[in-house]
């Protein structure tokens, strides 16, 4: 399932996929895969992404 919340949160911070990927230490394709719903990140990566976007896990990864 697509993660539109992540895409919206990233856009809200005016970050490209590459920029966010660089900050959390993954490849751009990994961020893209998460947003498309093709990959389920580990909890550590979820936390790293939330820290960078100043949001909570509930905001991005829970229904």
């Amino acid at each position, binding site marked *: 399932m697509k993660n539109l919340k992540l895409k919206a949160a990233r856009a809200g911070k005016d970050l490209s996929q590459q920029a966010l990927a660089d900050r959390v*230490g*993954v*490849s751009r*394709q*990994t961020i893209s*895969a998460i947003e498309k719903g093709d*990959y389920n*990140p*580990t909890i550590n*990566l979820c936390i790293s992404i939330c820290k960078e976007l100043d949001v909570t896990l509930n905001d991005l990864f829970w229904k």
Partner: protein
Amino acid sequence: MFLATVVVFVVALSFGFLILMNKVEGERDERQTQVVDRAYKYAFVTIMFLNAVVYFWEKVGNIQLLSSEDLAALSIWLGTLVFAPYTIWQHAYFPVKVKKSSSMGWLFAGLGLLELLPVTWDYFESSKVDQQDIYLVFLGILLLITGSTILLRNYLDRKEDEGR
């Protein structure tokens, strides 16, 4: 034959450089690690399947299809042919911090063609292919496919980036 030897030497150096580059530039991320693990699994299953087919074919037909050296070489070739393009296509072949460029693709594709052209030339000249030429053909095919996959992947990524 000398040209082929030089090409093989250059290929070996390229692989050595790639391995060194991978060690220096860092690790893969978690998604890439998953993809690589999956690729190893697919390559392993492919190798086992090949060996099973050869084994049963030889058992049923009561013939020796391949020598043990040829079977080992073919297994490695097929495993690499499964592993490399799959990981390249899934953006998992190169670690995160390695800057991808098309030069690697051109290098592999070019080397592949360099391997295949002399054999093709020999075949059209003498309608004969030596045992060693067959190894060159397999190596050439592997390099060509790997190089082409890198180039195609980079091209599609550029198109995707432009479309954003």
